[in-house]
């Protein structure tokens, strides 16, 4: 293993495969940012493992020149949990979609969060099933007309951030495909976090759900419609940066920038992440992005191997000899 910190360029992480997403798809921007971030993390390239399920977004590992596993629909978190619990020294990332990670794979996603296993999950939320041509997904809004809901979907959606917070994820963040600078900061913070990290990326599907997020992401409105939760920073927003957010015991208030609370993803204000993420995204409070939660808890993969070492220490290292002869035996002849 290399001892020096390797230096890489973005292109070191591009595989020789042609990228086959639709022109204009938000996935391109995510690929770009991830490759740039990976190049700068100081992690030997051979230690990255990119795992995915099935979906447009899940093609991701094929475009990364790292070790990669394109799994089956919904199971990326489980496959990645296997890689990470086997070899904690590897840098294991899951790339998944709203259908892959929250519908068919919802169970694995919440259990990976509960366990705080050290994998980093990037969930591409386009609020649609892209690869299967445009059915409503578990994040599609109620009433959405799609090919499988011609009169409007009757399902209520998941809020991925609330789900992650409720499932005990220790790092929960949201970023946006069209804001690469922010995305890179979030991905770096996710990597720096010890344990499980969940990053929802708001992603535009130009073919089946175009402009689903323009009310949040459009250049014209975004400063007024987004508030960045950044640890240690004030919760300010607005074109002129003059507005702010303050938590009261019973509500969330819009105040002037100087009255705004300072965000602490691991502290007191962090407890308000749940209240904040539930606000109507077309309502009065801007949509929160950034880091909702960043706390420390025991990390499963490290603990698994610490327990092995402790038992080897306590009982002595098992050998074939000891395996065969431990316990009650008797001799014939």
């Amino acid at each position, binding site marked *: 293993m290399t001892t020096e910190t390797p230096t890489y360029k973005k292109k070191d992480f591009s595989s020789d495969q042609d990228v086959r997403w639709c022109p204009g798809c938000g996935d391109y921007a995510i690929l770009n940012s991830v490759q740039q971030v990976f190049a700068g993390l100081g992690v030997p390239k051979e230690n990255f493992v990119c795992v995915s399920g099935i979906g447009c977004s899940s093609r991701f590992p094929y475009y990364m020149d790292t070790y*990669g596993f394109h*799994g089956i629909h919904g199971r990326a978190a489980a496959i990645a949990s296997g*890689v990470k619990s086997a070899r904690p020294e590897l840098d294991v990332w899951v790339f998944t979609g709203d259908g892959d990670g929250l519908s068919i794979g919802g169970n694995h996603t919440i259990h990976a969060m509960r366990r705080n296993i050290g994998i980093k999950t990037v969930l591409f939320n386009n609020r649609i099933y892209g690869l299967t041509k445009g059915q409503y997904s578990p994040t599609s809004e109620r009433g959405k007309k799609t090919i499988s809901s011609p009169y409007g979907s009757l399902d209520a959606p998941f809020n991925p951030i609330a789900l992650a917070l409720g499932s005990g994820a220790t790092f929960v963040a949201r970023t946006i495909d069209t804001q690469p600078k922010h995305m890179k900061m979030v991905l770096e913070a996710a990597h720096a976090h010890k344990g499980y990290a969940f990053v929802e990326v708001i992603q535009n599907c130009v073919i089946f759900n175009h402009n689903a997020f323009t009310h949040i992401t459009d250049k014209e409105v975004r400063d007024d419609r987004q508030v960045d939760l950044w640890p240690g920073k004030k919760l300010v927003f607005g074109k002129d940066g003059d507005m702010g957010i303050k938590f009261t015991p019973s509500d969330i208030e819009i105040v002037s920038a100087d009255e705004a609370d300072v965000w602490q993803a691991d502290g007191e204000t962090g407890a308000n992440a749940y209240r904040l993420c539930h606000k109507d995204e077309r309502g009065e409070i801007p949509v929160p992005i950034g880091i909702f939660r960043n706390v420390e808890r025991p990390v499963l993969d490290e603990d698994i191997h610490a327990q092995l070492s402790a038992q080897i220490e306590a009982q002595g290292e098992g050998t074939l000899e000891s*395996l065969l002869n431990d316990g009650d035996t*008797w001799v014939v002849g």
Partner: protein
Amino acid sequence: MSEQTQERKLESLEDVVIRFVGDSGDGMQLTGKQFTDTSAMLGNDLATFPDYPSEIRAPTGTLYGVSGFQLRFASRDIHSPGDLPDVMVAMNAAAFKMNIADLKKGGILIVNIGNFTEKDLAKAEYDSNPLDDPNLHEEYVFVPVDLNQLTLDATAESGVSKKDGLRCKNLLALGMLYWIFSRSAETTEKWLNKKFAKKPEVLAANLAALKAGSIVAENLEVFQAGRYEVSKATLPSGTYRNIMGNAATAMGLVAASHLSGKKLYLGSYPITPATDILHALAKYKNHDVVTFQAEDEIAGICTAIGASFAGMMAVTTTSGPGLALKVEAMGLAVMAELPLVIVNVQRGGPSTGMPTKTEQSDLMFAIFGRNGEAPIPVIAAQSPSDCFHAAIEASRMAMTYMTPVILLTDGYLGNGAEPFLVPDVSELEPFPITHPTSADAEGFQAYYHDERGVRPWALPGTPGLEHRVGGLEKLDGSGVVSGDADNHQHMVLLREKKVMGIADSYAPLKVHGGDSGKVLVLGWGSTYGAIHGAVGRLQREGKDVSQLHLRNVWPLPKDLGDVIDRFDTVIIPEMNRGHLSRLIRMEFLKDVDSFSKVTGKPFTVSEIMARVEGHLA
């Protein structure tokens, strides 16, 4: 011991079958296991058959709450837990009702009359007390005892509550049997001392009950003339341990980990009757074994597949319903060409079926039950101790050929016990596994296939070998995703050739008995013991019958067709609706006599003998 005892005659028996039956809360499994351990330490050959309901504690006294443990111990080589018991211990009316028809005429019948009250009789759906039947005394060595009262008396001074005292009644029964078969209670005393080291009163009560049992038996009228002994079996020399199939599977997997030099990783979700493998492996932490209790069976296999990609010897364990959930991921392992051992401890199906009963009805499922052309080799264990060797074989095959392998055992094997001749380390052949290194980076191809069709197992963390695997069809060589028509045809055939080619590595088949003749009894899996017993007995009677038992059920051995052609009739007893029979007809165009049994109980020796005799008549 009184002088009287020493004067009593000792009648030597060769082979005894005891069945303990009672409520699932009566400790029948424990009692049976203690008698088994004691007999094992005395050097008897053994076979056991625990038969319990799926309810953990069914309402007491009911017919459906009856739990049984049959064990056979002998001074000769035996292979099955026996058909009908010579001795029966019935702890209550319901247990009596469910089992009495099986007891051999002239057998010893110990009945706890304390649990034959009006209420007990009503729960067992008796109108009158069956023990009033005078025929019992004529047909059996009938021993009615009030185990409840005797146990209360015996434990009165130990300081435990009446309720706790009464719970020792199974030990009183055990003590009686130890005396009747003139064996020391030492193994059980040791075990009690360890188990209740921190509860001296409970310990005293248990020891008192055990002791009282021997005194009760000694004073019984029917044993004044003498008691019995079953001497040591003349087993091949070596070190033995008593082992249950699931424990043997776990041990075999750990052995394979040592032999291959690969760390063992288990991804699993609890399910009867496979869970004991998870339990056993979870204890082997000092052998560097990772056990991951996943959120479901799909995650069980997917974590294992991830661990395999990361370079571990990966295993997932389950039973039928869990195997159903793993199907899609099994296809992924085929496509990714990664080693994986899938252990399926079969149980009665379909659906939840009969979780605690045994069956062999997943054979076709194991061989063919996947979407697409997804060949997977299937191996079957034939006895509890053979699970050890079968697990090593499955692991070796998986890692040698970069393929998932299914190991089939079943509830009867998993929970059954027998003496296991512990192999010497030198008898187990290492099969060190190697991986490509950075030195191989130049021109490295993740889907390069050697002449056997096997691709390299390159591990994350190796500089220069970065590659992607997955479920989409891959171009032979580079492993790039490919929808090319000819490549798909080529890859389907390549994967098939690899798996079918494994048959080239099998040892030649060995027929037990004549190499040709009238009848061949062909089997696979846990029917081995009963078939072996039946064929052995018929052979001793001079009958023209042979036995062949398959370790590899897929791909089938190439010499199998020749062997079966040399017999007039091939009988295939299976605890399913004829899976192997269909395979034989399909692969060799040869008709066979499919002997199917799907009662949730294993074949008896006499059933198989009768079937063979039908063909010889």
